């Protein structure tokens, strides 16, 4: 008897309560002498809520509580006396016995687990029955009490609507809780990291090699956590190379679409550019690693430069392609928002369309375009899969785009996807990097929105 069957039973109880209360309310609603305050279905909802919600809350609490109780019962049983006193073995036996009892696993390796399994089955059944009984009791009590209140003068609708409002408020709290959760989890783990590594070394150090050695006497056992090469790699790929691709292409596409293209072309090309934004980043990453990176390496070798197969250029180029639609749609919006009078004035003075665009529209739309570019940069530096698959792991400080650089997001993935204990500075470093990434993207977004907003006000 697990959580879900009982929850289903409670829902059934709620349905019965709804039907019963509505029938009772419908009976007096038909009576002509006195009009009821609420419609019958509101009475139904009122009773159903009272029948279901307290019982469900109890069930939730009980599921969490009973796990501990079941464990205690099992440990108190005579079969458990033979268990080893402490340590991993005891945990393993208990875990296996529980798995056997719940049907999660079919075979146990430890003979003691097989002995304990029936005890577990009994305990689980016992506490489930208690849970079922109490939940049913609470459900019937709540529903019954609410049912007695159903009367023509009873304001069932007000009560139900108050519950709905509370639900709405609760739902909107989830966003705030998520934000708090993100900030707390990043700050707490980063603080633990900074207890081991000084923030100055992290922010200004030039050497990044987080591979802490297994034995203390190995060379470089402490690991180095200077994140400057990571920051440089992130900026090099996300803010320089990608933007060199995305700004000209995105801006020119937007200009062509808004000022030159016929409506038919516009209607077809805009969704196509939007598809470019909808392609999953893992697909871009695969494309970068499989097709673009070898071509870029060959090109670099042809130029006689030291070139790696995981180059900054390959990742940056593909990231730029991914960013094109963002730049173009932001530029599109801000060019379209320039008042028609400015366009007409320039054309009336005899300027050609391209002169109007270059001398009037783009300068007027510039704040919006800059805001869009800032948003695009914030997206590019937070982008993960392309750089994980196409950029390298070597933390180089280099200006050569054919060489391998690494980024903040790549390192977060690498630090957290190995098999290591959670408390080492190596894994905690990922949270420190995450905190930096979060703060930088947040700042970029806030600045971008300010710029865009200020510009909108200028023309309204």
């Amino acid at each position, binding site marked *: 008897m697990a959580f879900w069957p009982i929850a289903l039973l409670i829902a059934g109880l709620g349905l019965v309560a709804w039907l019963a209360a509505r029938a009772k309310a419908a009976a007096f609603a038909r009576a002509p002498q006195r009009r009821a305050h609420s419609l019958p279905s509101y009475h139904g909802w009122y009773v159903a809520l009272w029948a279901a919600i307290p019982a469900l809350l109890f069930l939730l609490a009980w599921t969490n509580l009973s796990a501990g109780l079941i464990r205690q019962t099992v440990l108190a049983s005579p079969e458990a006396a033979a268990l080893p006193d402490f340590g991993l073995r005891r945990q393993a036996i208990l875990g296996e016995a529980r798995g056997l009892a719940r049907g999660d696993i079919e075979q146990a390796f430890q003979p003691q687990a097989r002995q304990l399994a029936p005890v577990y089955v009994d305990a689980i059944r016992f506490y489930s029955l208690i849970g079922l009984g109490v939940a049913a009791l609470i459900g019937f009590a709540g529903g019954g009490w609410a049912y007695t209140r159903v009367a023509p003068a009873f304001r069932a609708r007000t009560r139900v609507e108050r519950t709905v409002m509370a639900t709405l408020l609760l739902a909107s709290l*989830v966003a705030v809780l998520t934000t708090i959760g993100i900030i707390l989890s990043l700050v707490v783990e980063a603080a633990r990291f900074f207890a081991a590594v000084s923030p100055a070394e992290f922010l200004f150090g030039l050497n990044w090699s987080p591979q802490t050695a297994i034995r203390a006497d190995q060379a470089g056992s402490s690991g180095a956590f200077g994140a400057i090469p990571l920051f440089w790699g992130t900026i090099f790929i996300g803010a320089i190379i990608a933007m060199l691709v995305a700004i000209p292409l995105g801006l020119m596409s937007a200009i062509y679409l808004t000022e030159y293209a016929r409506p038919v072309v516009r209607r077809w*090309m805009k969704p196509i550019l939007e598809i*470019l934004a909808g392609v999953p980043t893992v697909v871009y990453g695969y494309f970068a690693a499989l097709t673009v990176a070898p071509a870029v390496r060959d090109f670099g070798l042809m130029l006689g430069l030291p070139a790696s197969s995981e180059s900054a250029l390959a990742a940056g180029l593909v990231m730029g392609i991914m960013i094109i639609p963002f730049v173009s749609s932001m530029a599109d919006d801000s060019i379209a928002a320039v008042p028609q009078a400015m366009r007409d004035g320039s054309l009336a003075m005899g300027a050609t*369309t391209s002169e109007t665009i270059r001398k009037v529209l783009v300068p007027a739309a510039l704040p919006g375009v800059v805001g869009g570019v800032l948003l695009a940069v914030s997206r590019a530096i937070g982008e*993960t899969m392309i750089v994980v698959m196409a950029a390298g792991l070597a933390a180089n400080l280099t200006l050569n785009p054919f060489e391998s650089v690494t980024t903040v997001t790549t390192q977060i993935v690498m630090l*957290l996807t190995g098999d290591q204990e959670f408390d080492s500075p190596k894994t905690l470093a990922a949270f420190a990097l995450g905190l930096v990434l979060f703060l930088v993207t947040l700042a970029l977004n806030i600045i971008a*929105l300010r710029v865009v907003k200020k510009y909108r006000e200028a023309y309204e």
Partner: protein
Amino acid sequence: MSDVARTARPPTDWNAAPMQRRIRRRYAAERRFRLLGLAALLLSAGFLVFLLATVATNGLSGFSWMFLTGSDATEPARVGIWGALKGSLLTMAVTFALAFPIGVLTAIYLEEYAPRNRWTDMIEVSINNLAAVPSIIFGLLGLAVFLNFMHLPRSAPLVGGITLALMTMPVIVIAGRNAVKAVPPSIRDAALGVGASRIQVVFHHVLPLALPGILTGTIVGMARALGETAPLLMIGMRAFIASPPGGISDPATVLPVQIFLWSDEASRGFVEKTSAAIVVLLVFLLAMNGIAIYLRNKFERRW
């Protein structure tokens, strides 16, 4: 008249050779600019075509009955996509079950009932920020809170779904608010006028009219969640899983992560399987976006 006389400058002769040259130069610049714009547009669209063509030519040979029904394996000839697809479907089910109700209720609250105060501002600011937070940060949140603090099962669609739901919810809220805002006030006034309560106004009249817009935004958000990889790597959905998951708490992997894992394999045979998996993923995404566009065109109403 006297001004012209005083400057004593002859009127511009538009037919003179220097002026003609100048005009020709300006028109040439105009044409160059226009071509540049067209080139940028075609280049951007060309990238998309090139990407799709590369994936399709590599991937179409990778399809077989076994590929569509199997799960991950060590040999490229025996791998299948069904395990990852089922993982994706389970994850999306969890995401939808959480993000849709919470997102719609939040949108309704903010747009229809929320009083203008600091508290409401805080909710709005956090939603707008969440929509812009890099996805990998949600992965860090999932790892720190759901796995290490709440001890939910690792690699499970349950945790992946919750994490993606937190990411998708702001998208649904923003789309939902716009859809609710687009319903004209006269509808609300009419309903209030015949005696509906404020809750009845919203749930009987505004919400049904806003639903197509909300659904469009939801589908777009779900499509984004379906293609998301990085946060799921953080919560351990990158394990080698040789059988399809049975439920939302079983270890599983999802389509994009499976693509990532196969792309790392050295064996040549995985190239075609990876591309085939990408084709499957893109078909799903295009279908979802197609439905969203259809809904928008069919139900969009100008009031």
